[in-house]
């Protein structure tokens, strides 16, 4: 993998911010877009665009092919058995809400439980709380260890009474960088009669996902973190589950026939895709997947592991700086606090040097409370991040510390 070539594909990396070369270390919030994604969307708007599944004309047919082509690309990306198992949503949040409504209300029964972990993003907490309050489903939370890993003993104990119908858990924490042991989680969930959903919003950016090897039941991710556009996300689920689940939203595209007395649902996956979908975004997402494949997950994983090691060792050398989370299996998301400097102040100072990091609670308030923190600063890495950028971060953090000393 040639990093200079990769960087050259991201036009935004040439931008200056406040007179300084942009050092973008906030990819976990949303990643930058490669030329291929930008061009694909512009090309569609300029040359090949119409609504999908509706027209008998050339433009609609070609656009439908492009839209459905993205479904094929995603099925291949996830190693899904069947392209009909891929449902487009607006983002990860939309995908989880779809499952919470449709599987939660349609299949789970009052008295059953949903089990999440202590390091979830709000998008994998709040939909289950809403389900709990509306439908009498218990919400259980599997604790994490001080190192920031899932406590597997406690996790299994929470499954023991077999009330848990669904485990919904992150595959990689957006705060701690921790990968959860997904295959083990799925095996345990199944052993106790539960289905399992993985929130792959972060994980899929850095690692090859194989839903069959993981033995997952649901897997969700969001396009904009995977170098694709905003406004498109994915729910993958086993065909039998999707078939059993009632539709979530009603409208056009999701029906096979409508009368005032009754309507019948379209085949999978359209049953879950009401309304005109994110057509241009699907085209952009396909280009993003093509870009990922052209670089290759092995190269991406190796590059990011080396960046993470470098960052952890540079940050460890800064007095008063405390890295949050010490998981064995972790990826390129590093949260930290600094004695004498609040995360916001750190972020503002870094921003003055053109360095973009995130500061705050990272949509994970309960996790922050568990860690006893109000906020952290977070640097996160992408395919285009360089070792030099991490050095710039570390050198600047030393100056931040001096500023507030």
């Amino acid at each position: 993998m040639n990093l200079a070539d990769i960087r050259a594909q991201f036009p935004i990396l040439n931008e200056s911010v406040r007179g300084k070369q942009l050092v973008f270390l906030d990819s976990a919030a949303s990643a930058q877009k490669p030329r291929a994604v930008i061009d694909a969307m512009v090309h569609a708007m300029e040359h090949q665009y119409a609504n999908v599944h509706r027209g008998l004309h050339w433009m609609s047919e070609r656009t439908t092919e492009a839209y459905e082509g993205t479904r094929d690309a995603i099925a291949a990306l996830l190693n899904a058995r069947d392209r009909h198992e891929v449902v487009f949503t607006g983002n990860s949040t939309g995908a989880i809400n779809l499952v919470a409504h449709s599987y939660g209300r349609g299949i789970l029964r009052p008295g059953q439980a949903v089990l999440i972990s202590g390091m979830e993003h709000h998008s994998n907490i709040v939909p289950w709380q809403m389900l709990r309050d509306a439908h009498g489903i218990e919400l259980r939370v599997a604790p994490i260890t001080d190192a920031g890993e899932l406590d597997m003993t406690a996790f299994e104990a929470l499954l023991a009474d077999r009330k848990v119908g669904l485990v919904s858990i992150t595959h990689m924490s957006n705060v701690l960088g921790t990968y959860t042991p997904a295959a083990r989680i799925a095996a345990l969930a199944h052993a106790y009669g539960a289905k399992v959903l993985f929130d792959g919003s972060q994980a899929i950016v850095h690692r090859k996902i194989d839903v069959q090897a993981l033995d997952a039941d649901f897997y969700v991710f969001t396009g904009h973190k995977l170098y694709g556009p905003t406004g498109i996300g994915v729910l993958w689920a086993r065909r039998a589950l999707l078939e059993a689940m009632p539709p979530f939203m009603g409208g056009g595209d999701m029906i096979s026939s409508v009368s005032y007395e009754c309507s019948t649902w379209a085949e999978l996956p359209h049953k879950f895709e009401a309304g005109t979908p994110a057509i241009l975004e699907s085209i952009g997402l396909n280009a993003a997947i093509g870009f990922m494949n052209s670089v290759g997950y092995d190269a991406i994983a190796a590059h990011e592991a080396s960046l993470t090691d470098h960052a952890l060792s540079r940050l460890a050398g800064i007095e008063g700086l405390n890295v949050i989370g010490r998981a064995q299996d972790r990826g390129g998301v590093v949260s930290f606090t600094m004695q004498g400097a609040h995360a916001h102040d750190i972020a503002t100072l870094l921003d003055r040097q053109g360095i973009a990091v995130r500061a705050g609670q990272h949509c994970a308030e309960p996790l922050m409370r568990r860690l006893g923190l109000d906020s952290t600063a977070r640097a996160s890495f992408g395919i285009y991040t360089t070792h030099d950028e991490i050095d710039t971060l570390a050198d600047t953090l030393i100056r931040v510390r001096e500023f507030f000393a």
Partner: protein
Amino acid sequence: MFDDLRDLYQEVILDHGRRPRHGVRLAAYDATAKGDNPMCGDRVQVWVRHEADGRIAETGFEARGCAISIASADLMAEVVGGHSDAEIRDLAGKFRNMARTGTAPDGDAAMERLRPLAGVHEYPSRVKCATLAWHALLAALDGKGDSSSE
């Protein structure tokens, strides 16, 4: 390296952010409220004690937050002493306006003391840090108990 940030982090702010003078929970108070900025995790609680004539005798606070939010709470606690609730509402309006636009009316002693915080107007994401304590103070005066700077 951070010379151009001295507008935002003036010495007064760094000093009050590090060593707030009014960062205490009052033992005797007649109004209190919490302020919470859920996006970033900043929290403040303000306690107020009035004189018999309705003017503020003393203000104290406890806060978890950045240098800006703590310095702002501290300077606020300092300047509101001796003022009536109506005057404080007026001052809060001027302060909010200064945090957003960078300008404040001349010749107002309280606003002069708060002027070092005017630099936040260039940092839209930080305006809430500066105004959080004021939201909490107004909520306390209104008897609301808590507030949010969202």
